[in-house]
């Protein structure tokens, strides 16, 4: 456990030193979301209706940006060998990377998601459900994303392949996440949708690190 925390601390310290990566993802999120009012007009009814969808899609795309560096840098400089030999199982290394990705990319997106939703005239009643759904949604993206990042490791043009692998897997998350926010906006209970997201997270939490760990093992071979 102490090795896990030490490695996580190292990841966070590295992210802090290269703060531009996180900032780029957050700014991408804000800018992409800001393009929608310009493209479809500022009419509050239309904009508020599609605001949850915009927030979700833009947040997912923004969180995918730094994914190819999750293992890429370690693979290129030999750190991945050392990580796999540090005494932790490969699955734990993958889980550590997923946690680091969520803390570095997911949490800043969560923080900025509320102001972006308000900017898009999202009905206030739906805001708590939107954020409550985004918490498991960003965690799921970090978990599925590390699987994708580990699978494309060493592949030519892996950065292009990665979204093609991860985005289809994220569709259920998108559907239930937006449905939760829509339900809350319409004075219905978002609970069933949020529970579905929680169930997906409960399944992904043990399975994704195992899959990513196996992919890492075969990548270093």
């Amino acid at each position, binding site marked *: 456990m102490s*090795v896990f925390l*030490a*490695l996580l*601390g*190292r990841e966070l*310290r*590295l992210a802090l*030193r*290269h703060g531009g990566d996180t900032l780029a993802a957050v700014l991408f999120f804000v800018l992409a979301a800001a393009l929608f009012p310009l493209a479809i007009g500022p009419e509050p009814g239309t904009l508020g209706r599609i605001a949850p969808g915009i927030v979700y899609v833009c947040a997912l795309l923004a969180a995918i940006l730094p994914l190819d560096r999750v293992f890429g840098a370690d693979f290129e*400089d*030999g*750190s991945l*060998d*050392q990580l*796999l*030999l*540090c005494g932790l199982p490969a699955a734990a290394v993958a889980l550590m990377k997923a946690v680091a990705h969520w803390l570095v990319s997911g949490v800043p997106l969560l923080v900025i998601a509320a102001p972006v939703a308000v900017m898009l005239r999202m009905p206030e009643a739906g805001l708590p459900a939107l954020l409550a759904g985004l918490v498991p949604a960003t965690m799921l993206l970090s978990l599925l994303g590390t699987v994708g990042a580990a699978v494309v490791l060493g592949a030519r043009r892996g950065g292009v392949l990665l979204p093609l692998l991860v985005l289809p897997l994220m569709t259920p998350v998108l559907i239930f996440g937006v449905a939760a926010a829509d339900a809350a906006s319409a004075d219905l209970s978002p609970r069933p949708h949020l529970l579905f997201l929680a169930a997906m997270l409960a399944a992904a939490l043990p399975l994704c690190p195992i899959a990513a760990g196996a992919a890492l093992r075969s990548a*270093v*071979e």
Partner: protein
Amino acid sequence: MLEAQDLAAIRGDRLVFVGIRFAVPAGGALVLSGPNGAGKSTLLRVLAGLCRAEAGRVLWRGQDALGALEAAYLGHLDAVKPGLTLAENLRPWGARPAAALAAVGLGALADLPARLLSAGQRRRLALARLALRPAAVWLLDEPTVGLDDASVARFGAMAAGHRAGGGLIVAATHLPLPLPGATALALGA
């Protein structure tokens, strides 16, 4: 005692080596030599458990240890993060980075970002990682590449200390290594 029995490895579709046998006693050292592509690095990665062996066994103190050997591995890449300081680079791998840095003569640079290091200094930082973990087996891939004479001597002292404590070393190299009494194993191309 580290023993290999009839190890074979395949990379891509090519048989890299077959029928590798050796035995290294506690405190001993084995130096792998051979032309480029002979499989020295692959053999080290097989021993470390990073690559799969197609056939054969690895025994550590008489127990099957293929893929489960508690070893410190130094690859030909240094695994140094340029954005972190020298001490931060070592911290996840052991509790006392200062002593390890002093052993490779980098003690004064502990708080310097690693991006400022020369190639030889990066190699020394990678060597310092070996001293951090109490692993009985050191697997070294070209440990002295880019090192000056004084650093090679320091590496020799580190290796001697490790072997005096009952540890053993398997190293692949093209350069003469300061490992007195090491057995040699030549791999063919």
